[in-house]
């Protein structure tokens, strides 16, 4: 038994789940690059995507070490298929709503619901027995604090803005909230009450109603995704797969 094998590691499954979450949402949010509603937001969203891609890289690198067999951050990101991905279904959904193909309310609500969860998740993971994961959690926590503040501020601005912005944001909330049920299939039920607190508090300030979750449980974390992940990956992986022997 060598030193690496004897040190404590998070499971490959958990690392890939965290990495896939970060990559898929980072990839989605990067769709706003050059298309934001105002230049400052364009830049802010790109920043948050960069944070997420950075997190994904650290996590995939760690996962590659754990998995061995010549895996690398890029083999894990570019050469796994949709049913190998372990991200929450919420994160792969397009920014579309009934009103618009790319609706900023959907973007903000998703970032809010997810960053509130990750705020708690990274906080808890700082105490992981896997020292490397604990380190990634520490770094990511700083970043997600900003993501949470950003999306919370906008949630309130949109919820308490115009009639249209209120309606769009409530609609986005109704649309996305059911997907958060998947958060609680994880091994962290203890996070649920504090998450409820963060969410309810912000919704109150925004004047938004919390919809009751009534929908079938999504199963992205076990590799059963919505129709939207495969096209996202098809696009993302196309160039890398077209030139498998290339240097980039």
């Amino acid at each position: 038994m060598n030193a690496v094998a004897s040190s404590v590691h998070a499971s490959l499954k958990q690392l890939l789940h965290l990495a896939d979450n970060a990559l898929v949402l980072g990839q989605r949010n990067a769709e706003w690059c050059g298309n934001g509603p105002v230049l400052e937001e364009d830049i802010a969203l790109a920043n948050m995507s960069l944070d997420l891609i950075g997190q994904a890289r650290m996590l995939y690198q760690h996962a590659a070490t754990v998995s061995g067999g010549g895996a690398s951050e890029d083999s894990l990101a570019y050469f796994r298929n949709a049913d190998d991905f372990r991200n929450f279904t919420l994160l792969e959904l397009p920014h579309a709503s009934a009103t618009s193909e790319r609706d900023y309310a959907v973007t903000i609500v998703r970032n809010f619901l997810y960053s509130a969860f990750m705020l708690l998740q990274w906080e808890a993971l700082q105490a992981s027995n896997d020292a490397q994961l604990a380190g990634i959690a520490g770094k990511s926590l700083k970043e997600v604090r900003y993501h949470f503040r950003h999306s919370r501020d906008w949630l309130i601005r949109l919820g308490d803005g115009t009639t249209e912005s209120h309606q769009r944001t409530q609609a986005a909330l109704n649309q996305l909230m059911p997907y958060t049920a998947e958060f609680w299939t994880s091994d962290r039920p203890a996070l649920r009450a504090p998450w409820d607190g963060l969410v309810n508090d912000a919704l109150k300030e925004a004047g938004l109603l919390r919809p009751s979750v009534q929908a079938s449980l999504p199963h992205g974390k076990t590799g059963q995704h919505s129709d939207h992940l495969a096209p996202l990956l098809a696009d993302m992986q196309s160039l890398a797969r077209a030139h498998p022997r290339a240097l980039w």
Partner: protein
Amino acid sequence: DALQTRFDEKIDADQKIEPQDWMPEAYRRTLVRQISQHAHSEIIGMQPEGNWISRAPSLKRKAILLAKVQDEGGHGLYLYSAAETLGTSRDQLLDALHTGKAKYSSIFNYPTLLWADVGVIGWLVDGAAIMNQVPICRCSYGPYARAMIRICKEESFHQRQGFESLMVQMRGTPEQRAMVQDAVNRWWWPVLAMFGPPDAASTNSAQGMRWGIKRLSNDELRQKFVDATVPQAAILGVTLPDPDLKWNEERQQHDYGAIDWDEFWEVVNGNGPCNKERLANRVKAHDDGQWVRDAAQAYAAKQRARALKEAA
């Protein structure tokens, strides 16, 4: 008059003009036009490269590209702010862009056909932009000069990143080398045209020089760029697509072939491969974002009213 004299003295003494200083209307107008064109170029310039973010072939390259395109947004932001110090609002500037009244650099009306294009844009387009912009770091208008210093620093970082990524691709497969060469073939001539029409045909230049807004002529900048780029192309191992390109021992500069100015003007006049699409995308993003900006404004107004009420 005294104001004009004081202004001229400052210019002659290479002192900076600041927003609160008196300045001739034509100077102000010229600056607003030039700075906002530059800002618009940064914003429109996000599109051709942004097109490849989703498909970047490694996570490292995805992060580098996203950061780069984001920097371009940042440059747009500094430049709009610099233009605003001259008394024109960002809304007015954007309106001029969206209605087609304001121009932006023609180079961004060409498509990015291959991943190699992203590297070539960094190497050649940013390289040409730096050549154009470094002299502006010494321009007479303070806010513009200061914005340019920051922008030039970031641009030369991008230029090095672009070159480095091409170096890696040239060490890759034969297809990769062919794609880099193809991208160079397509971008070379439009990049040379970026410096603007030949001095003989160039308007405004003399006045710009006098005002310390322009420091070098179009042809001087183009020559500097060619001379700097030829050895870089050799290091990369690509051929610049100009049979007339060669070292002129006598001039101690490179000679280069004739630029197709008809194509240049076609693109400037809106008939390039992507003009309509670039502008349509920009307008769409702006229009689609209207409700968000409205909401932010409405919320801010409510907050102000609440603060007033509490204070009362």
